[in-house]
Structure formats: structure tokens, C-alpha cells
């Protein structure tokens, strides 16, 4: 991120602004390369490639190693950059051929999840190969100087970057309009089935597209190297911005991606140029991400399909029709009572450590159930559900820290925090659908994360807020466990009650067929907005409990990894049943706790497990069970 410069050293404001503008434009180039790679891949494969940030990161690391190995110099540097792009492209091809090719027919959520598994794997591989320290990027030979512009000096490399993006744009335009490959890609973006019926083998087309997209991301990582470092946080660091760029620019539009990247660069410039001014005690450069969010919001309200994207056509229904949600059979209810009895008796049987784990599992069960309510009942996929968990946690923690509220009162602030965040973000999100919506939820979660991270005076920044302890009556582990158990069970029953209420039925009607639901007078968008807010509320309760369990909150609670954890829990248990997320939360938390205690490279293992699960059960475990054991009936 940009550091705050001081504008008050006598520099004429216009010159200062121009130099900042050029810096901003230079930083837009890498973002554009990564975003247009993502957009190209999405256009043809309809997969939102979460691992795209990983290609970007690998591009930077590989360029670093290649330049070092080639001994620097002009050919060493540019040879290294090109090698990095090619290597990233080939890694993309490997990923497409080994993983994605098997799951092109799986629901999009599973595809997203598989690519996130790749993110985890790449993180640990990069940690193993390049170590935990950031690597300082080499400078570009021949472009190390600066050009004077009035009293300001513009680095030559910035000028190169500014010119590089339009150059790539031009080359891509030629590729897509003057080559057979490009024309086939454009045709396949619109109608893959028809392209196949005309005799085109899509296998190499998809692989080719993956090569191109991944190579562009790798190139983006490589060319930004002289401006910064190669580091392990680059992957998730850029992905949210890339999502913003693609959603604002319009999915599938390369020129749109360029314009959106420029727009975001300009917002940065504005924030930095006004670094001196402050709003509510926050310096403007600190709210850079909030400004980006505001602009994105305006664009999406005016043009929900992005600057240059295609208007989405409302389809009859998305994907397969899900079986109706039925009340649990009597046997299952008895089983649930037995589990409840076990949970009540647990403090008498388990040790402190086990009880803490059990408390955590209960909290995550509520968190997963809140996401399941949104996804399974509402049909709204959220990739940033941790935002509301985190807002709940911060809601409670801030009350404790700034107003010295007791736990009992602070726990009521938690659902308010989650619900308020979901109310605001949800208003925008429900305007979109499907993948666009999922990307937007992730972008919002990143913004919430950035606010918690940057608003140091209030949130404590990276350190978070410490000393959030329960009231004395609930201070012991068994007592707090009891409190969590009661709250979670009440909340789960409330979720169940809502799912089977008229509102729940309307929601499910909107999920299965938005068009028909609309036609019979259900305001689908409004229903989804309520559902979004409710899901935020329940997630907030879970977050509040979690804050008191850990005694602290930190921005990690809003991070992408936690959002994905929740998704894995829901998918593990199966989307079709209300009990699913509970089973998923238990399985996943136990699995992760085990892996973390086993090795430092637990991300690698977790990533492999996720990818393996998706490949083995492309329809989800519940779908697998259904296909496997109920197949005879359908074949008739």
C-alpha cells in the first residue's frame, strides 16, 4: 500500500497531483494484467479462479529467482520477466488439466472451492521454496532513472508501466480479432456448446485460455517486482481488488477491466493527494479502500453489470432443482435430543482443552448455519461471510473497550454489528446474482477487513483489541461453554423456525425460480436482502461469542480464509439439509485442529483435502450419497 506522503513541502499542488497521477496509473498496470487474465478465464470456462492471485504471486517469485539466476542485466531482467509469465501460464495449464478438467460440470461453488484449495497449496509451496521473508525486487536495468517534471521526478519504470498496459491491451485486441484462437475464444465465451457442435475441440481451447490468463497474472506479478517485493500475502492481497476491477469493468470485458483498473488507480491518487485532510479523525489515505468501495457502489447501482459488461438475463432457475427442505423425521429428532443430552453432560466428562474446542465447534456450527441459511434456503452465495462474523466480534469488543460495557450488554451489540454490516453490504449484493454476487460479497469482506486493519485508533489495527473477557459468572471454561451452548441452540432453533416460516418458503421460491417467484408477487430482491441481514445477524452472534472465547479480536476474523472455512463446512455437510452445516462444522473444525497440530504445512494438507473432496464428490457429499443410493429410481 502507498505510504502517506507530505504535500506541504512547498511543491506546487498541480505538479504534485500530476506526479501522483502517474504513480497511480503505473500501479494500475499490474492490476489490469491480473484482472484481464481473470476475466478471460471466466468468460470461457465460467470459473471464477480464486487462485488467480496465486499466479500473480508466483509470477513475482519466479521472476525474482529467474532474474537472480540469469545474473541480472538487461537480458537477465527481461528474460526473467518473460520466463515468469510463461511459467505461471504453464502452472495454470497444469491446474486446468489435473483439477478443473474434472469439475467443469460441477456446481460453480465447488469449482470456486477447488481453486481456493489451490491457493492454500501454493501458499505453502511458496513458503517452502522462498521462505517467510519478503524478497526485495530487483530494479529494471536501463529504467532506473527518473524523468524530471517540474520539481517532481517521475521514475522511468513508472512511465514504462503506464505505457505497458495499453500495449498489452492492443496485443490482446489483435489476438482476439485477428487470430483463429482469439475468434474461437470470443465465440466460446458466448456459446460453448455451439462451438463444439461446429467441430471445435474445447479441451485445447480451455487449456489455451487458462495458459493465457495465468500467464497474464504471472506477467503482472513480474512487472510490479521493481516497484516492491515478492511476498506471501500477495495472493489474497490482490484478489479482492481484482474482483472489484472485474465486477466494475464488467465480467468478460478486457477494455472494461482496463478502465476499472484506471478508475481505482485514480481513486488512490485522490486519497493520497489529499492525505493531509482528514474525516472523523481518519486520514484520507487510510480510507482509500472505503473510497474504492463507494465508487464501486455507485457504478453497480447505475450499471449492475459493470461499465462494459453485458446485461444479465434473468434465468428461469439456476442449476439443478433442489429437493424441498423437509422437517426432520422422528428418528433424527430423537438423535438430535441424544446429541443435546451429550452436549449438556460434556462439562462433566471432558477436560478443559476439549471443552474449549467443543465451545469453538459450537460457535462455528452457528456461523456455518447462518451461511447455510443464506445459501441453502436463500440461494445467495456469499464468499465473504466472515465479514459479519468479524463485525459481530468487533461490535462486542468495541463496546467493551471504549464504553466498558459488561459481557451481557456487549453480546447484544454483536448481532447488531453483524446485521448492520449485512444490511448495508446486502443492499448492493442482492442487486446482482450468481458469481457476480459472490465476488461482490468477497470484495465487501475485504473492505471490512481493511477498515479493521487501517483504522488503528478505533480498532487497534493489526494487533486488534485485547482483554475481551467474559463476566465473572461465565469466566470458567464450563460456565462459558454452557452459555455458548444455550445461545447457539436458541439461535439454531430460530434459524430453523425462520426456514419453515412463510418468509422461508418465499425465499426458497426465489431461490428455485426467481422469474416465477417474481411473477407471483414475491419481491425476490427484498426477500434476499432480509435473508442477507438475518444471516449477518446470526453470524454476528457467533462472532461475539468467539471474541469472548478468545479474549481478543483481530482483522483475521474477517479474512478470506475464515469465509472459505465456513463455505467448506456448509459444503462438507451438504446444502440440502439444515443439519448439514452442523455436521460440517464438527468435521471441519476437528480436521483442521488435527492438521494444525500435525505440521507447519497444514495449509498444503488442507488444500489437498479440499481439492481431493471436490474431485471425488463434484456434486457434494450429500449429492454423492443421493446419486449413489437413489440412482435406481431415476434410471427406471
Amino acid at each position, binding site marked *: 500500500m502507498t505510504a502517506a506522503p507530505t504535500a506541504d513541502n512547498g511543491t506546487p499542488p498541480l505538479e504534485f497531483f500530476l506526479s501522483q497521477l502517474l504513480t497511480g496509473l503505473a500501479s494500475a498496470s499490474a492490476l489490469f494484467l491480473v484482472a484481464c487474465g481473470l476475466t478471460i478465464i471466466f468468460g470461457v470456462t465460467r470459473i471464477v479462479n480464486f487462485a488467480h492471485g496465486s499466479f500473480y504471486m508466483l509470477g513475482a517469485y519466479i521472476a525474482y529467482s529467474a532474474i537472480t539466476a540469469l545474473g541480472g542485466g538487461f537480458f537477465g531482467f527481461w528474460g526473467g520477466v518473460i520466463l515468469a509469465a510463461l511459467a505461471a501460464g504453464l502452472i495454470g495449464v497444469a491446474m486446468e488439466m489435473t483439477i478443473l478438467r474434472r469439475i467443469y460440470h460441477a456446481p460453480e461453488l465447488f469449482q470456486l472451492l477447488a481453486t481456493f484449495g489451490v491457493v492454500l497449496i501454493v501458499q505453502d509451496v511458496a513458503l517452502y521454496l522462498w521462505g517467510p521473508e519478503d524478497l526485495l525486487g530487483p530494479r529494471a536495468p536501463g529504467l532506473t532513472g527518473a524523468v524530471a517534471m517540474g520539481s517532481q521526478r517521475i521514475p522511468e519504470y513508472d512511465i514504462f508501466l503506464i505505457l505497458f498496459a495499453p500495449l498489452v491491451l492492443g496485443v490482446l485486441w489483435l489476438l482476439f*480479432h485477428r487470430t*483463429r484462437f482469439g*475468434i*474461437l475464444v*470470443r*465465440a466460446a*465465451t*458466448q*456459446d460453448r*456448446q*455451439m*462451438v*463444439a*457442435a*461446429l*467441430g*471445435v*475441440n*474445447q479441451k485445447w481451447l480451455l487449456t489455451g485460455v487458462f495458459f493465457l490468463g495465468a500467464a497474464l497474472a504471472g506477467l503482472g506479478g513480474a512487472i510490479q517486482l521493481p516497484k516492491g517485493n515478492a511476498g506471501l500475502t500477495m495472493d489474497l492481497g490482490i484478489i479482492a481488488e481484482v474482483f472489484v476491477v472485474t465486477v466494475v469493468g464488467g465480467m468478460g470485458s478486457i477494455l472494461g477491466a482496463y478502465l476499472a483498473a484506471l478508475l481505482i488507480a485514480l481513486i488512490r491518487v485522490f486519497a493520497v493527494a489529499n492525505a493531509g485532510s482528514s474525516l472523523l479523525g481518519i486520514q484520507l489515505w487510510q480510507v482509500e479502500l472505503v473510497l474504492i468501495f463507494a465508487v464501486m457502489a455507485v457504478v453497480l447501482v447505475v450499471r449492475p453489470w459493470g461499465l462494459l459488461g453485458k446485461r444479465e438475463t434473468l434465468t428461469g432457475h439456476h442449476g439443478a432443482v433442489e429437493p424441498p427442505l423437509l422437517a426432520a423425521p422422528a428418528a433424527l429428532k430423537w438423535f438430535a435430543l441424544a446429541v443435546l443430552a451429550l452436549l449438556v453432560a460434556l462439562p462433566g466428562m471432558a477436560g478443559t482443552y476439549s471443552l474449549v474446542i467443543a465451545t469453538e465447534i459450537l460457535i462455528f456450527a452457528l456461523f456455518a448455519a447462518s451461511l447455510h441459511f443464506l445459501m441453502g434456503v436463500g440461494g445467495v452465495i456469499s464468499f465473504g461471510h466472515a465479514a459479519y462474523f468479524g463485525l459481530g466480534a468487533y461490535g462486542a469488543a468495541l463496546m467493551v473497550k471504549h464504553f466498558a460495557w459488561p459481557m451481557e450488554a456487549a453480546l447484544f451489540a454483536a448481532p447488531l454489528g453483524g446485521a448492520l454490516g449485512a444490511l448495508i453490504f446486502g443492499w448492493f449484493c442482492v442487486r446482482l446474482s450468481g458469481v457476480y454476487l459472490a465476488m461482490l460479497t468477497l470484495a465487501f469482506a475485504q473492505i471490512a477487513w481493511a477498515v479493521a486493519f487501517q483504522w488503528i485508533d478505533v480498532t487497534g489495527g493489526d494487533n486488534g483489541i485485547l482483554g475481551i473477557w467474559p463476566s465473572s459468572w461465565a469466566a470458567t471454561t464450563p460456565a462459558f461453554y454452557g452459555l455458548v451452548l444455550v445461545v447457539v441452540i436458541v439461535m439454531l432453533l430460530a434459524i430453523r423456525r425462520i426456514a419453515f416460516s412463510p418468509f422461508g418458503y418465499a425465499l426458497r421460491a426465489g431461490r428455485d425460480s426467481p422469474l416465477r417467484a417474481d411473477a407471483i408477487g414475491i419481491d425476490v430482491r427484498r426477500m434476499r436482502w432480509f435473508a442477507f441481514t438475518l444471516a449477518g445477524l446470526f453470524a454476528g452472534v457467533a462472532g461475539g461469542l468467539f471474541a469472548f472465547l478468545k479474549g481478543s479480536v483481530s482483522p483475521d476474523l474477517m479474512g478470506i480464509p475464515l469465509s472459505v472455512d465456513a463455505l467448506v463446512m456448509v459444503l462438507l455437510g451438504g446444502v440440502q439439509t439444515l443439519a448439514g452445516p452442523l455436521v460440517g462444522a464438527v468435521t471441519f473444525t476437528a480436521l483442521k485442529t488435527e492438521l494444525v497440530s500435525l505440521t507447519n504445512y497444514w495449509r498444503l494438507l488442507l488444500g489437498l483435502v479440499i481439492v481431493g473432496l471436490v474431485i471425488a464428490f463434484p456434486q457434494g457429499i450429500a449429492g454423492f450419497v443421493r446419486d449413489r443410493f437413489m440412482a435406481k429410481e*431415476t434410471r*427406471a
Partner: protein
Amino acid sequence: MMLVVEGISAYYGRAHILADVGLSVARGEVLALLGRNGAGKSTTLKSIIGLVPPAAGSVRFEEREIASRPSYEIARLGLGYVPEERRIFSELTVLENLEVGRQKPRPGVPEWTPERLFAIFPNLAEMRNRPGGQMSGGEQQMLTIARTLMGNPSLVLLDEPSEGLAPKIVEQMAETLKALKQEGLTLILSEQNLHFARLVADRATIIEKGRIRFTGTMAELMADDDARTAYLTV
């Protein structure tokens, strides 16, 4: 016989669309696959080209079994498919649409180039750089056929080529199909419009509720009032 379909069944989910469908067409012949809306005409064609792989049965094209092979392989054997909904690539220009359909020349089959196609479809020649999305329905229908011909097929499946076209354009379409027959192409067209089918087809097969009800020459069909009233009149 050039193409022999025997006993194919097809499902959409649990819905049984085709049951034991069989038909055949000889080289150089035009076969009309007739039937009412929803009878299974489109699905039959989609099963042949592999877009709806048949659950059972066999499809032999030039002595080769093609049932359940991927559609791009079937298309590359020389089987062209013109979809009902046209499915023009609306972002692509006329020339680019043709480029997507281009395949290698095939021995013993007329070889098509954009220029040769423009001779048959003069309208398209005037708009070669226009995006497909900015063309009229009739022009799009012509482009769909031209695009399929770029693959140099020996047999072309046309799904309701006359649907939604103005009467004058329908006549033009009939002339075009006759011209293609003159070139030596074999055609199967699905149709609801008996009048149109009479203009171009040699033989007819009638499908009703997913089952074949009649097969014979066009003349036999015209003589068989019962078959026509039972399966074709609305």
C-alpha cells in the same frame, strides 16, 4: 444408407423424450422429420449430433458408430448441425462467425469458402463485417446455415429452418436448400410446416410423443390423409 439411427432413447432429467426412435437417410437425399411442437424433433437431431447423448440405441454415420461420442468429434466427421434458435455469435462479425465454423476440406464433399457462400447468400456478402447481433432473423438464419457449411459437411441437420421467417424468406430458404441438394449434400430437416417440407424433401419421417409413427416418401405421405390428420394437424 449414409446415416442410420436405431432405437435411440433420450431423457431430460427424468422426462423421457425419445423412445426407440429410428430413421435413416441415403446419400444425396433430403429427409423431412415432421411432427408437432414438442414431439421430439429437436431432441432427435441433438441426439445425432451429440448435444443430448442418447441413453440407448445406435447412430451410424457412414458405417461408423457415433452415438455418445463428443459433438466436436461427430461434427468433424462431416455432420453439420444448424440449431433451431440460430445461436449466432452476436458479438462476432459475419466473417468471424464463418471462421468459427471453418474445418479442413473433406474429400468427396463440396468445399466452401466465404466467397462461395456469399454467392449463395448474397445478403450476407453485403454485411460481412456486421456483428451477428445486428442482423434480421432471416439473415441470421442464412448465416447459421453458412456457418455450418464452412465445416464442409457431407450431411447437414437443420432444426426448423423455416421457423419464424416471413413467407417470402421461407421461399428463398427452400430455394437455398434445393441448391445445396444440387451440390450433392444430404439433408435432414425437422419441420412443422408441411408446405415447406413438400418443397424440398424426398422422404418424410413423422415423430409423435417421442415415437416414430410414419416413414415413407413425400408422395406416400401426401396420399395418406389419416397419418397427416393424426400426427400433423393441430
